[in-house]
């Protein structure tokens, strides 16, 4: 299958995503420059991590106006798979493709560390290879991953099974200590109502090879491959 990796000025996980898709998973991939509008022939779009436009204003606030974002929206409307990782998640929220917002970590420090995630919904197109309640170990690397949504939005996210991952301890308990950034209800990743747009703060592309300390990120990429194969 063919992945498109969207590059904004300031994106830095583009190369990491490309490496995983091409060299680890053996799939096709190409970069999509943020000023371009051509997403033809692609099965899945990745909005990678980084600091688009430096994130000086508000994370993702400028990137959402890039020409490519119109195409990302159309692509999603057609049912194409879109995954936003870290800064990509922030951009999807700013663009209104996902509800809620990512604010400054509650302790106001940047955090780069391994975290545990509990799979809340294994029946999405991004988690079909996971079990309900499975604990995935995946690194985070962000200063603004503190998820917030208003009570109504939060209620509907929960009711619709749109919360896909929550920060947890190694036993799978979503404790306060296991929450690395103050996210509401330990939310680490959510999906849109239609189920084809995922946003997550942790970086699955950083843990697809044993040499890097773990391979749990592959559950997500391999779920995507399964879906498209069907």
């Amino acid at each position: 299958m063919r992945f498109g990796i969207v590059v904004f000025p300031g994106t830095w996980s583009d190369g990491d995503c490309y490496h995983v898709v091409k060299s680890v998973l053996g799939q096709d991939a190409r970069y999509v420059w943020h000023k371009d509008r051509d997403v033809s022939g692609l099965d899945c779009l990745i909005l990678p991590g980084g600091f688009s436009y430096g994130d000086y204003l508000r994370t993702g606030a400028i990137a959402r106006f890039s020409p490519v974002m119109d195409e990302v929206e159309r692509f999603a409307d057609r049912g194409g798979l879109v995954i936003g990782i870290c800064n990509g998640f922030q951009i999807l929220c700013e663009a209104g493709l996902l509800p809620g917002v990512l604010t400054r970590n509650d302790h106001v420090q940047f955090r780069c560390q391994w975290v545990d995630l509990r799979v809340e919904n294994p029946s999405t197109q991004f988690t079909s290879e996971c079990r309900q309640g499975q604990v995935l170990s995946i690194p985070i690397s962000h200063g603004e991953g503190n998820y917030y949504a208003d009570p109504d939005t939060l209620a509907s996210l929960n009711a619709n099974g749109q919360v896909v991952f929550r920060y947890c301890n190694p036993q799978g308990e979503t404790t306060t200590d296991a929450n690395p950034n103050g996210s509401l209800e330990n939310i680490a990743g959510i999906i849109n109502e239609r189920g084809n747009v995922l946003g997550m703060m942790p970086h699955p592309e950083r843990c697809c090879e044993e040499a890097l300390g773990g391979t749990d990120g592959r559950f997500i990429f391999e779920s995507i491959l399964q879906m498209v194969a069907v």
Partner: protein
Amino acid sequence: MPVSKETLDEIALSRAEYEAIVERLGREPNSLELGMFGSMWSEHCGYKHSKLLLKRLPSKSPRMLVTPGAENAGVVDIGDGLAIVMKIESHNHPSAVEPFQGAATGVGGIVRDIFAMGARPIALLNSLRFGPLDEAQNRNLFGGVVRGISWYGNCIGVPDVGGEVSFSSSYSNNPLINAMCVGLVEKDRMVRASASGKGNLLILVGADTGRDGIHGASGLASRTFEEEREMRPTVQVGNPFMEKVLIEACLEALDTGHILAMQDLGAAGLTSTIVESVARSGSGAIINIGRAPRREEGMTPYEVMLSESQERMLVVVSGENEEAVRQVFDKWDLESTVIGEVTEDGLVSIYDGDSLVASLPVDVLTDPPLYSLQGVMPAYMEETRSFDLQALPLPTEKPESILLRLLSFPDIADKEWIFRQYDHQVQTNTLQAPGGDAAVLRIKGTGKGIALTTDGNGRYCYLDPFVGAAIAVAEACRNLACVGAEPLALTDCLNFGNPERPDVYYQLEQCVDGIASACEALGVPVISGNVSLYNETRGVAIWPTPVLGALGLLEDAEKRCTTAFKDEGDVVVLLGAAEVSDDAQSLAGSVFLEVVHEKVAGVPSIDLELEVKVQCLCRRAIEDGLLRSAHDCADGGLAVSLAESCVAGGIGFVGSLPLGGRWDAALFGEAQSRIVVSVAPDGLPVLEKLALEQGVPLVQLGSVGGAIFSIPQLMSLPVDELGAAWKGGLKKALD
């Protein structure tokens, strides 16, 4: 009109230097020209007090691809058509004035040195020194510096993979902020910084030029600290987003094949960039600074030529390729402006519109007077050298309690509080994250790995600058050996006080000679570096602190070793000693002596011949797959090294070797050239045979296992308790 003393002071030139300029020009320089001389003849750009000494450093190696000093950074061949580019640089003075921006722009500057050569920056390291954390001002500096590095490094997507942090009152008003960057380049894509070819265009790319950082090179780097509190505007402000875009745009512009040379704008801004790039080829340049995009109106030629605004690059292309190259910068929405061209007259001529505002011979600008002083041993050394370590009383405090105190001492304690604020994983090459003896990065597309570390020890260098500097080199290379990497090259950052003082000059000279002697013994060249002098407050110099950044190569990255004890029953062995010595001499300059006896005294020592053999043995044993773990025995001595391997592995240690006599020296002495390793029981005879063949003494210490750290008759502590002390030490010091 005779130039005033105030004017000369402002640009840090002496009257004699001014007179030399007049003589060589055959006329008085105008004020812009004088400012350019101030920068080019500063210690920072001209290395007036250090150049003659730096020539003593060994710089030859078959792997070296450029001559040290000839380019922006050193380059080492690692095979497969690839090369590593690396350099370390100080940003001490700016960070003392404004820690957040000072540290941030320190990162930005060193990264530009690396991609100016066409290399992709793949790793950052930091060597940091502050005053003790119990003083609020030091906590502020420390916090600001860490935030600054985090802010800048994280935004540009270059992993920060290691370094060191150390605390001593010697650095209280003068923190040391040394940043190292490492890049990877295909050998045939490397770009030079030499601008040549009459008529070729000089294109300024990146940020606009503002009034920030004027006199950064001549002022900050040549003045002592209290003089510069009034000079706040000389600190630059960084824009990491601009840097990230500049990295990508410059590397993409290289793909056009049209870039003839590249040089970043650093200290002394446009002045040094233009002068240095044409000096390398013996050319000249005509510049029209009226064309340089500015941040504000009304800037004088002087301000434009000496501004140290960040995130700017000078690119040299031929006229016919101008458009193709500028298209790339346009794609990245970066401003690019032709500001001049290369000439053959050996002059740098600056126009502002139609008027010629400066015209100076390049060879004079780049040929400052070089000074060599007669160093004099500092007076304090009489006292520290005659201190009788043998007469130290054995502590009344229990060994267990001392060990816990040392583990939580900020120099030794876990640095996770710092490095979890740095992205150390981006680019997905980090095999060994911060916290090991050296970081290990894979080189994608090959089976190879590179190992990186920084090392320095102000305490040892204060006590004996020659030996201390030799130890710094040895320890950096030993750290590489502990992960299994062969040392390929070093980069050095020499942090000292005012070199015009004979006692400081003595320290500088001795340290350079100490580095040279260890480099020769270990067969490692120094390929790049930087000096930071005038680090002093109220006439008191910092400890002489040479910091070494080291690069090692692992032919097979899979074979890398870690510090963590692994399996129950593995045998723990000390390489480099036939017994655990209890000679009090080994407490010289030790952390134990400072923490327990509040003394910095004694004479450290090292046997370089033994050092070389121990490192060879360790690498060979890792290469052969014999070692389960390897950990340098350094700050805090043997007990700390063993405890750290236990904590890293989450498993205990059962000591079998009774340590008698001076247990303080046996446990906490810092004798050099020792590595704590563990092997499977059936690997022990093989290791012993190998050690015998290579002439390296070793001694069995005990075995891995259980959840207790024990040494017969001296201590027995749960590993959890050791872990809590080690992990919580830095946080405790900050609260």
